């Protein structure tokens, strides 16, 4: 009896295992790759550069005394100016840095200027549209000002001969105390990429 019971459990488990398997649809031409794989397809700014800059800056920022001096300081991200001729989405870099820093739990982030309009619209909607309970809606005038702001630049120097192209990137980031204007931390990450003719 017990054997029969165990057998039926085993059969059900096996069958349910089959049913839960997700079918794969594939033409055989598309594969998922490692998102952390080193990309050297061209010498333009790429995913590996973004990841290495974000990692280096996060590590450095979290070791800064300014971050540890205050209990979970509130930080906002200002602009990282792109001074290259390449279409580099610097917001994507700062988004990655912010995510990594947030995960450390040492810092909180206030909404930045690019998200301010959405923030304002949401508060106005909650407090003024008449659609929300007054006791449950968020009030205007309760936003917290950030203790620090992060800003920076990315620059590049490109040199090219008939056979070789050399690209040098420098990403600089600073942490500035919003009240005192004192720069509390700064760091740079440099990247050099050289390619031969077949690549450019």
């Amino acid at each position, binding site marked *: 009896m017990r054997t029969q019971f165990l057998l039926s459990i085993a059969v059900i488990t096996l069958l349910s295992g089959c049913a839960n398997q997700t079918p794969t649809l594939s033409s055989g031409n598309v594969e998922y790759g490692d998102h952390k794989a080193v990309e050297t397809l061209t010498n333009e700014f790429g995913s590996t550069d973004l990841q290495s800059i974000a990692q280096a800056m996060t590590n450095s920022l979290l070791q800064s005394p300014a971050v540890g001096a205050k209990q979970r300081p509130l930080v906002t991200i200002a602009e990282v100016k792109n001074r290259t001729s390449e279409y580099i989405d610097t917001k994507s870099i700062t988004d990655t840095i912010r995510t990594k820093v947030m995960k450390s739990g040492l810092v909180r982030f206030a909404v930045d200027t690019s998200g301010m309009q959405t923030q304002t619209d949401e508060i106005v909607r909650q407090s003024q549209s008449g659609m929300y309970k007054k006791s449950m809606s968020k009030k*205007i005038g309760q936003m917290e000002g950030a203790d620090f702001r992060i800003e920076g630049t990315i620059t590049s120097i490109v040199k090219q001969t008939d056979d070789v192209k050399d690209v040098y990137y420098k990403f600089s980031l600073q942490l500035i105390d919003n009240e005192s204007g004192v720069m509390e931390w700064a760091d740079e990450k440099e990247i050099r990429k050289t390619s031969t003719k077949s690549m450019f």
Partner: protein
Amino acid sequence: MSIHTRKLTLALAITLAFSGCSVMRSYDDELKQTVDLVSQGEVSQALQQLDSNNTGNDKDLLYYFEKGTLQRFDNKYKDSVITWLSADHLVNEWENEAKIRAGAILENIGAVTLNDKTRRYDGHDYEKVMLSTQLALDHLLNGDWDYARTEIKKTHEREAIIADVRAKETDAIEKESREKGIGTTFKNLNGYPVETLNSPEITSLKNGYQSAFSHYLAGFVYEALDEPSLAAAGYRQAIELRPNIKMLEDGLAGLDSRPHQHKPNETDVLMVVESGVAPSLSSVMIPIPVIYKGLGVIPISFPVLHSDPTRTNTPLTVAIDNANTQPLSMVTSLDAMSKRALKDDMPGIILRGILRAAIKGASQQALMHSNNGYAMLAGVALNVANVITESADERTWRTLPSTISVARFSIPTGKHEFTLGLNKKTLDINGAHALIVARVINNQVYWSQPIYGAKMPANIIAPPAPQIEPEIIPKSVSKKVRKSSTKKRSKK
């Protein structure tokens, strides 16, 4: 007749039979009529005429190129987008193939034995890039700024693919011509109008596919979408492509200050004036010495570009409400870009032409020197066929403009009368940023009224005024909101 020559003749005959219409089609003749109709303001007739010249089910890239432009003239932005997305699909197929087969320059036997018209029309490089730019303009006119951003991003990616493909192709042509001992410099083509491809305006261009206008537009859209790091790159690339143009330099210089100077009731307007039509292509026949000794010369056709200055009336200023006159800066010449593109394509065209001359010469001689009477007759027929079918590829996107000029100014939101030359039009200007497009062909001006709507991002068009009590409005809420709220109170 040797087995080799028989095979060659058979290949020639098969190619001739199968290539049929495309060999004899004169695209320039077809489009002359279309352009004439557009010049007279007859867009509907031009569309009908275009359709009557393309009755088959399998439409080619050029059909979609031209049709999308005509639909834009008619202010049918959505139809134009649909048509140009069909073209985009074909360009996308080319991109996917080109990445794999870049450098396979002689793979199309039809092009070698007959003429370049037998090649599938993949579009010139500047046309592929301009397609994305024109799609972006359509989306902006339709109020779809996010879709416009997608097209602009696609433009950068397309330019990178073209650069890669052309670099590989250039290497392959150099290698092939070196191995066969063939010179591919167009200056050595005796009788070719070298001056059409050799002016400083053409040689000073970085390449034949990147335009300052496309990159300035990218800067404008990224700026409007509050992405200054990308906007800076757009403005910077525009300056690099067309240096010393104040209007382009101001785009970059004012990037940081413009948001602070912007007034809530004003609109930052980018006015785009497209003038004339792109140059036409015709053939010039040049006798080419056959690379095999003793085979004499064979006439081979080469493409020549002809500008159309009579249709190009590039305005220098635009007047707003008969008072405010703004300068228009010519930032892109598609006339020069198309010539630069042809100049860069000439080594490949010459290589294919010289090989074609060799094949034609060899097959003709084999038939003419045969003891068989029928073969000799076939040789004469082949000679005649060679002359009839020899024609350069005249296909090119003719309804593209010859030049693109831009002006940028801030004006109060609302209706304004714009004047280009003697032509006036009242347009509704709305939102923080707006785009106006005008197309001038001869004295005809096609104005595009932008559509404003819900698809515009919050920072492009101001959000609807909420009902706010003035004493609790934070400073960040726009003045427009305060004004609206105050009005409501006064009514009470």
